[in-house]
């Protein structure tokens, strides 16, 4: 590609293209390419970065290509002549202008486009591109920079705060951190039924996770392993390859995706080769570091102990029995003596036992924080693209290496992608994309509350214990046999957890599509496409000898195979009738096949310590295999009419056939109607209204459970060879689809020549006939049964307000504000439930329990007993009285979520920051319970100096009569009872937060500094999750419990620290 230095830009005002008419005859002789440069501006006069210009010489059909930099500038060299220029920009579609390039002069042009609302093209369901104004339901489009500006390990984290109505929850489970994305509230009472569908270039991506084989986040004492988050396919999408993201929240759009888009759909379009001559090379390097965002308030004033006193009545400490008294070192509680400069017999790491001498009683304030390190991620990406007028190709290779904040954790990922489109003939075109990802990790952290999770260690670590005492991991001469955990046998050595209790993964995935489009005529075309999403993972979980749950070790191999194929066709007809009516009719079909195979082979008990092989088991390996196969066939159609380009109406219909449902009721037809009116074209609106659109949509949808085999009787697997157990869940041979009816209306206003964009949506949806597992009377021989029933309503408001506060060619300031609230209400529960509530998920002693009139996010558990005036009732023992029944504690869902993003451009600088947050919602914290019970948090210092606490509240002196509580209780006893695990009320906190989610400063080199070689270059520094304001006392209120594959909201179950990311990014285009 030829480069040239831009001359001083002459800014020319005016509409469209300002073309100066030069006599063409003068130029004929000139065949020397001359510099041609300029700037592309949008309707408001703001630069359009990243636009592609295709210049086509009118007489010779010779083509040239260029693209705009961050300032919207472009430059190239072209022979003199008259050109048509096609300007294409992401999310805007393309526009054509004319341009004359005279000989002998170097001029700069301003190409002013109509880029605004009217011609925006949105990728909608089935990849059908629609004009924005024709859409009857809400959609939001994000560009590449939204996910690349301030990179997260999982790109989807970057959607946070940018999409109204999008809810992102994550267990915060390490570097590959699965997320659950849902749109417009949880419609399904099935904990796994609310994930949004993710589609990448037409290929649906598995968004659920695969469990490591453990289904409960609370596992302490069960003898079980812990859940490990190995990530899901969503995380493997390489953000560098993303061109745009369409978020289809509305029912009309999802009606065409059918059952899988119950939680909305997120359509990702990746970059494809532009039709430019020569090679375009982009090199992108990104380096970021991660540190812990926030620590809980650990106390370092009192050391280990349960409050035991010596014969003199003094709190004392003794590691094991000593002349000072019996041992006080077996506990994980920190209700021992104050650090006052005194001396005690303590642990001596050299002796691996009690020291001979008394040593200074002191805290080790970095004995939790010191375990963590600064994490880092280095990502390098190279992409090549090129093409000609018939098509283009793009290939990219991306490598990421992450070391996470926990020692010996992290991952490495390599993604290779290639794709292109080509016009094979005038009528036939082809497009394809293939991406291969290898994700590898030697160790990913375990999550949840159990001995093998580092969260458990952090809870149990005592203030007087030096972290370094644990470092040798194994006792001398007992390598691999006896770990160093000198205090409580309940806690495993943290370095043993990090270095020897490893969870490794090696995953290979391929996402591919191949499509053809045949244009029978200009009006009629047929597209056929095949897609494939394949994933093969090998995981190993190693548990050494002498660990709390596995005395003689444990080793598990997990093979996960997943394959989903889709084949579809779409026949489209487009015509204009009577010059005013535009008709688009499409009909198509899809067949989807999914196969999942998970094989778990494990040996519980090893022969030779430290040898992790299935052949090293004390018994033959136990093999547990799970298969999930299902198929969905669909036929669908869409008929879209527009009248005078200002009235639009679409009708869609879809018929699905699901293999997972009863043969009697395995298919369903569901329609939708979507309409919009361009009010600004119909009525003469006051001048500030540049554009106004009213839209509305009504849609039905049907869903299967995506869980096969529920309509037949099968025996459950048993670890005993040749054995099985009778099913615990009663099958249902009459299983029918879940149904949803959705209504939506919205108003889209552009004011003041488009400088203010306001989009307001109100929606309501009703989900009925849910597929759920309800508990049944155990005397029937079953614990649960599968039924259809229940009705859930979600309604809410979504607001998007985008303003262009300043729009000058060299300085601009844009603000985007999003806000959404959703109200979830359970209107009815199946009569068969018998009880008046239904438990969706359980996290420790907190229940996600729903009742008619309540919400599916309601958290129930034990609370305090309170007097009529709201005071806590204490018993005669001075401890809070225990209620007999669980009560409503709060709702896991936020009242509202919002985000505000500001972007400033000044010449070659761009600065943006995003603040987002939520108001309302609660989180029950297991970590808070345990650390309070054990006296590890600062708030447990109250009462220690005095040696007692008098709980604030009343005692019942007679029926309905209360008097203030005056009973003194030892602090250790008080905190253990007040914050007991089952007291969900005392351990639940407001989950409201505000975060400085993203901040970024970018500098792009202007054309004149680029030299001949570079097309563009930019350098940026950024931060993610820089600051947080929250009343949540532990690490981060944005958390959830990971129960196998289910992410349970509102419950924190052994949280890992969340991170603050600071990074730098360097991009060159050649």
């Amino acid at each position, binding site marked *: 590609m030829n480069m040239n230095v831009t001359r001083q830009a002459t800014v020319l005002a005016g509409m469209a293209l300002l073309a100066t008419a030069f006599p063409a005859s003068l130029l004929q002789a000139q065949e020397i390419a001359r510099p041609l440069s300029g700037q592309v501006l949008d309707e408001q006069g703001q630069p359009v970065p990243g636009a592609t210009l295709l210049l086509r010489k009118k007489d010779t059909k010779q083509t040239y290509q260029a693209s705009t930099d961050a300032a919207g500038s472009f430059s190239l060299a072209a022979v003199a002549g008259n050109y048509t220029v096609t300007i294409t920009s992401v999310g805007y579609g393309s526009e054509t202008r004319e341009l004359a390039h005279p000989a002998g002069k170097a001029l700069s042009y301003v190409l002013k486009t109509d880029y605004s609302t009217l011609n925006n093209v949105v990728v909608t369901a089935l990849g059908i591109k629609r004009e924005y104004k024709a859409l009857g339901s809400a959609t939001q489009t994000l560009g590449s920079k939204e996910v690349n500006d301030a990179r997260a390990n999982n790109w989807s984290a970057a959607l946070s705060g940018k999409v109204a109505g999008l809810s992102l929850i994550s267990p915060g489970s390490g570097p590959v951190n699965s997320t659950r994305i849902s749109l417009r509230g949880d419609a399904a009472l099935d904990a796994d039924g609310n994930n949004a569908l993710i589609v990448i270039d037409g290929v649906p991506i598995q968004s659920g996770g695969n469990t490591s084989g453990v289904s409960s986040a609370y596992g302490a*004492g069960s003898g079980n392993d812990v859940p490990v988050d190995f990530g899901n396919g969503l995380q493997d999408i390489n953000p560098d390859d993303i061109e745009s993201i369409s978020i289809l929240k509305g029912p009309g759009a999802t009606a065409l995706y059918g059952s899988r888009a119950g939680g909305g759909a997120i359509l990702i379009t990746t970059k494809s080769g532009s039709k430019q001559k020569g090679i375009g090379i982009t090199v992108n390097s990104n380096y970021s570091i991660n540190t812990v965002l926030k620590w809980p308030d650990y106390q370092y004033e009192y050391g280990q102990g349960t409050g035991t006193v010596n014969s003199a009545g003094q709190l004392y400490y003794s590691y094991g029995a000593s002349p000072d008294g019996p041992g006080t070192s077996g506990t994980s509680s920190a209700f021992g003596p104050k650090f006052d400069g005194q001396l005690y017999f303590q642990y001596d790491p050299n002796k691996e036992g009690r020291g001979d001498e008394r040593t200074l009683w002191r805290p080790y304030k970095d004995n939790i924080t010191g375990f963590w390190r600064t994490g880092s991620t280095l990502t390098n990406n190279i992409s090549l693209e090129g093409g000609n007028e018939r098509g283009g190709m793009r290939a990219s290779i991306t490598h990421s290496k992450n070391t996470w904040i926990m020692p010996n954790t992290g991952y490495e990922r390599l993604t290779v992608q290639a794709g292109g489109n080509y016009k094979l003939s005038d009528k036939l075109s082809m497009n394809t994309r293939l991406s291969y990802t290898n994700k590898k990790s030697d160790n990913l952290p375990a999550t949840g509350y159990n001995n093998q999770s580092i969260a458990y260690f952090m809870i149990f670590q005592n203030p007087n214990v030096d972290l370094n005492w644990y470092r040798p991991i194994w006792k001398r001469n007992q390598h691999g046999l006896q770990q160093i955990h000198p205090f409580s046998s309940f806690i495993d050595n943290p370095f043993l957890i990090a270095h020897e209790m490893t969870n490794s993964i090696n995953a290979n995935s391929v996402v591919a599509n191949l499509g053809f489009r045949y244009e*029978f005529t200009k009006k009629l075309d047929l597209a056929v496409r095949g897609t494939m999403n394949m994933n093969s993972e090998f995981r190993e979980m190693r548990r050494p000898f002498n660990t709390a749950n596995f005395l003689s070790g444990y080793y598990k191999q997990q093979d996960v195979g997943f394959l989903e194929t889709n084949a579809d066709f779409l026949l489209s007809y487009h015509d204009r009738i009577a010059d005013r009516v535009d008709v688009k*009719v499409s009909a198509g079909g899809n067949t989807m096949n999914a196969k999942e195979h998970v094989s778990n082979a494990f040996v519980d008990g090893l022969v030779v310590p430290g040898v992790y092989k299935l052949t090293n088991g004390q018994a033959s390996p136990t093999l547990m*295999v799970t298969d999930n196969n299902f198929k969905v066939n669909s036929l669908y159609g869409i008929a879209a009419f527009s009248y005078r380009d200002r009235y639009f109406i679409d009708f869609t219909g879809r018929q699905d056939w699901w*293999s997972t449902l009863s*043969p009697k009721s395995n298919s369903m037809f569901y329609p939708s109607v979507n309409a919009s009116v361009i009010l600004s074209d119909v009525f003469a609106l006051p001048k500030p209204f540049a554009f106004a659109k009213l839209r509305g949509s009504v849609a039905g949808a049907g869903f299967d459970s995506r869980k096969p085999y529920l309509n037949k009787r099968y025996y459950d697997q048993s670890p005993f060879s*040749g054995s099985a157990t009778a099913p615990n869940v009663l099958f249902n041979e009459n299983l029918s689809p879940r149904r949803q009816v959705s209504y939506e209306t919205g108003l889209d206003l552009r004011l003041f020549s488009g400088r203010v964009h306001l989009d307001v949506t109100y929606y309501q949806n009703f989900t009925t006939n849910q597929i759920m597992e309800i508990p049944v009377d155990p*005397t029937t*021989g*079953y614990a649960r049964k599968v039924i259809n029933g229940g009705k859930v309503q979600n309604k809410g408001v979504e607001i998007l307000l985008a303003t262009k506060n300043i729009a000058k060619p060299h300085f601009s300031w844009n603000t985007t504000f999003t806000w959404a609230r959703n109200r979830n209400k359970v209107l009815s529960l199946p009569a068969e439930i018998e009880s008046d509530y239904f438990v969706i998920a359980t996290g420790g002693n907190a229940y996600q329990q729903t009742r008619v009139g309540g919400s599916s996010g309601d958290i129930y558990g034990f609370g305090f007993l309170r007097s009529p005036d709201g005071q806590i009732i204490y018993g005669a023992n001075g401890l809070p009285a225990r209620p007999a029944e669980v009560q409503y504690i709060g709702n896991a869902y936020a009242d509202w979520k919002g985000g505000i993003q500001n972007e400033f451009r000044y010449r070659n600088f761009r600065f943006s920051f995003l603040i987002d947050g939520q108001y309302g919602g609660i989180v029950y914290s297991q970590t808070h319970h345990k650390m309070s019970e054990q006296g590890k948090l600062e708030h447990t210092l109250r009462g220690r100096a005095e040696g007692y606490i008098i709980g604030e509240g009343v005692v019942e002196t007679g029926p309905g009569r209360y008097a203030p509580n005056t009973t003194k209780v030892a602090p250790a006893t008080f905190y253990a009872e007040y914050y007991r695990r089952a007291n969900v009320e005392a351990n639940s906190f407001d989950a409201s937060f505000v975060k400085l989610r993203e901040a970024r400063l970018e500098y792009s080199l202007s054309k004149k500094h680029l030299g001949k070689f570079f097309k563009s270059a930019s350098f940026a520094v950024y931060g993610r999750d820089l600051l947080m304001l929250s009343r949540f006392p532990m690490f981060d209120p944005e958390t959830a419990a990971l129960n196998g594959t289910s992410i349970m909201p509102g419950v924190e179950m052994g949280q890992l620290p969340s991170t603050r990311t600071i990074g730098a990014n360097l991009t060159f285009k050649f």
Partner: protein
Amino acid sequence: MKQITRYIVPALASAALLLGACTKGFEKINTDPNKISIISPGTLLNPTLYELAAFNMQKADDITFDLMQVALNFPSPTPGMHRYDVNEGTGSSTWSTYYRWLKNIREIREAAVAAGDPNYAAIALTLNAWVYANLTDCFGSVPMEEAIRADEGIIQPRYNTQEEIYRTIIADLDSANRLFNTSRAMTFGTDILFGNNVTNWKRFCNSLQMRLLLRVSARPEMNAWTRLDSIINNPTKYPVFNANTEAAVLKLTGVYPLSSPWGRPQDFTTGRAAAQFFLDSLNVLNDPRRARFASQAKDLNNVNIGYKGIPSGYTGSESQFNFTPSNLLQALISAPMTCPILTYAEVEFIKAEFYHRSQRHDLARAAYEKGVKAAVEQWGATMPATYFSNASAAYNGTLQRIHLQKYYALFFNDYQQWFEYRRTGLPVLPQGPGMLNGGVMPSRLIYPVSQRIYNLEHYNSAVSQMGGDHINIKAWWQQ
């Protein structure tokens, strides 16, 4: 518009043809390639045996240890089971776990009948009687006849009275004894309890019948003593356990899946002390089982002070005990370990009581001594030759003596110590001042809340028939 006829019509026509194919292969796709839908009579047996034995052991730990002063929560600021704090939740896992495995047992029987295999059918009848006896002894009336029949559409089963249940299961055990065919091999896998030894299964069946007959022996209409007599005096027709090696004791090797039910051994001892009654009597007996069961207490200088427990139902602060009490040993629940289901010792103690009742004290003494020896050896201890020369150990013709030793023989054997105490009031347990319920031993567990939710009508009629749903309602065989 010509295109419509040229392309769209054929396309729609072919789409319509596809419609027929839209559910093609669904049947096969929606068939689990992995899980089985047909079983052999042996398929469900091992998980059922393991899960029940393991669960029973945990219930002995949770409930029986505390009620029967074997061990207690320590420290225990809140009431705790040792102070008779039995609430609505106490029996809920017993209820749901037993019904879950009763379902499996029912399917074993159905599969055995389908396969025409009398041995597996008899095993299923034996296991069924075992579980239902425990269930009714915990709660009283429970659903039996109509239970576990959701497949037939019965989702609210009627309750049967304890008498109906006992009559049914005793009759079942009699039929099972006749069904066993010791010359026919068990061919569907190897069972983990008896290793396919049909004779031992048959002994288990008859030994269990002895347990059940003794349990209902106070009900004259059950004619239990006569029936016991016919079993004890007709070993050919009714073989019973004659040695520890024959007994229904599940051995957990620790080789997965025969693992200890305790995932973390320390959970067994944390927050726990041995009870004073349990150790004091062993101290008097100078019993070799002490070292098998418990650790020594330590004084404040960490010096062993012998086997010393904490009195059940104590009041006041833990600081009143100026020693570290004995605790049960983790070795009891660390594999290799044993899960008692029905021991040989119990059979001898049943005989001892039978002979004691008929005043044949020589036979009673012999049975008593065999029982004690078997109980000592069952836990790997060596029976001292001089054991019975201790006046407190020798048979003295009292039921109290027999039942003190039976109490130790039933250690860790589900709820049996408690059931036997309810029947006989033996051994005589001291009363702690902190005990609730007026210091009266609870006579049953409260029905789980699920019954009031799912099966209210039948629950109500069962409760009104029994006279209430509280812990002091006596079992039918107690009345």
